[in-house]
């Protein structure tokens, strides 16, 4: 391992951290604006022109608020839980190619921290570890609503890992690799080569599961909306709560990158247009997260479990079997 590689990797890591921390903040602004427009409101308007500096004001508030550790909580676990959520969200970014490789000053840059050969498994695995944030945070909080929320979050996340894994299995069988770069190469021929045309069921299943993995609205059960309680984050304040928030939004951005990379051709042939195409697809999927939040109600926990185990998982298994038969004959 030469030092140039080391320096390059560190620079990439820092850039991804900075860019996606900022994007998480800007994402909250977009979410509030989009939700407001869909509900005939204006959203944040006072901080900066059209409220664009609102996330700056929010960041100042989060950073300067008192960090309260309530009595009765298990302090070390309570403190480490938000870090787990944020850290695992960013760790998952290591295997995601955000853009095609490009040359800068004659030096070829691959905008992926590490093209490991188990890329998808790594991303899904690390995102699954993110479950420990809500789970430990809720259990350590000494608050019954946090505990309920933590239990619900664990049930949802673990159940939908099954759907995600089985849904992604069929495309993996077709491509024959776990690296997202190889997925992209497989679909580089153009729109006709996209995996979504040969695996529409897997695409829909993965998309549905993505909502559960990120805890977004049709499956937004990690917040106890029915008890008007924020869920596992009830006892958190200041930047620890902010870390949960950054983790959630970074997760949304990363899963919005992963879906087009897996099913919709990624950055295509690696041209400038292809890179723009990936960003456009990512923006659509991120926007869809906000769109559904304005349009759809939450489902009940038992309906969620029913949907996962009795509907989505059998369909995913059948999809895998059919894919296998088609590939064999």
């Amino acid at each position: 391992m030469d030092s140039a590689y080391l320096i390059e990797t560190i620079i990439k890591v820092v850039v991804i951290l900075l860019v996606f921390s900022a994007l998480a903040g800007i994402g909250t602004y977009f979410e509030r604006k989009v939700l407001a427009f869909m509900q005939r409101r204006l959203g944040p308007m006072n901080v900066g022109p059209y409220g664009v500096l609102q996330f700056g004001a929010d960041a100042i508030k989060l950073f300067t608020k008192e960090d309260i550790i309530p009595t009765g909580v298990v302090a070390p676990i309570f403190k480490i839980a938000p870090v787990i959520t944020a850290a695992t969200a960013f760790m998952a970014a290591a295997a995601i190619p955000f853009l095609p490789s490009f040359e800068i000053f004659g030096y070829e840059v691959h905008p992926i921290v590490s093209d490991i050969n188990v890329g998808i498994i790594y991303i899904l695995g690390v995102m699954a570890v993110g479950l420990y944030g809500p789970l430990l945070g809720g259990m350590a909080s000494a608050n019954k609503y946090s505990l309920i929320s933590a239990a619900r979050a664990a049930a949802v996340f673990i159940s939908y890992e099954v759907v995600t894994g089985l849904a992604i299995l069929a495309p993996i069988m077709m491509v024959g690799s776990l690296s997202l770069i190889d997925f992209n190469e497989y679909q580089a021929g153009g729109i006709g080569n996209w995996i979504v045309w040969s695996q529409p069921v897997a695409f829909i299943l993965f998309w549905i599961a993505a909502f559960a993995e990120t805890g977004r609205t049709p499956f937004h059960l990690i917040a106890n909306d029915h008890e008007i309680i924020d869920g596992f984050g009830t006892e958190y304040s200041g930047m620890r709560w902010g870390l949960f928030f950054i983790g959630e939004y970074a997760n949304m951005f990363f899963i919005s990158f992963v879906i087009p990379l897996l099913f919709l051709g990624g950055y295509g042939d690696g041209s400038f247009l292809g890179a723009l195409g990936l960003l456009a697809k990512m923006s659509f999927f991120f926007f869809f997260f906000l769109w559904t939040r304005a349009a759809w109600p939450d489902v009940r926990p038992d309906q969620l479990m029913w949907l996962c185990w009795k509907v989505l998982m059998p369909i995913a298994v059948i999809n895998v079997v059919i894919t296998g038969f088609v590939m064999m004959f």
Partner: protein
Amino acid sequence: MSLEAFNNRNVTEGDYFLCDIEDYPQDGWGKFKRVVKRTFRGELFVGLWVVMREMIRFDIHTIQYPQEKMPIGPRYRAVHQMKRLWESDTERCIGCGLCEKICISDCIRIDTRIDENSRKEVTEYTINLGRCIFCGYCAEVCPELAITHGGEYENASDQREHFLLYEDMLTPIDKMKAGKQLEFEGFGSITPHEDERVKKTPLAY
């Protein structure tokens, strides 16, 4: 639009119709059919389209409050005002004390004396806005239409007792001279064109 459509409770006529609610399926096959039907009916996309339509239409209903305010009706009962007589610009209040008597939250205090011309004069008049419930009885009971409600509703205070003095409520004399005193049209005021309905008192019995 008239209210008749809403007041007519006779469900056998008009646009009323029974909702077509199916019975719950009893067996597994029926439940399965219901799930399939609901899944492919595409109602989720209707919801998506509705919110997207509103976003494109951009018909924003927000009122940015400190900069913009809603118009309030003339009958709105906000902070009180003391009116002056149009003819002589003097105060209308005759110090009868009816408003103090009728005030159900006991927030009006009035004090009077006999002045040099042997006329009753108001010396002290306060309304404790912290207690006032803005019921409008004082304006209704006032025989001279002196105390009325105004349209000023921003009366936040940093104390529980927030007293309104007589001088604060009274129409400023320069505003009166400019003829800009607004008559209250709400609770207790004279209905419009009342003059035309006045009849001579029948004296011949």
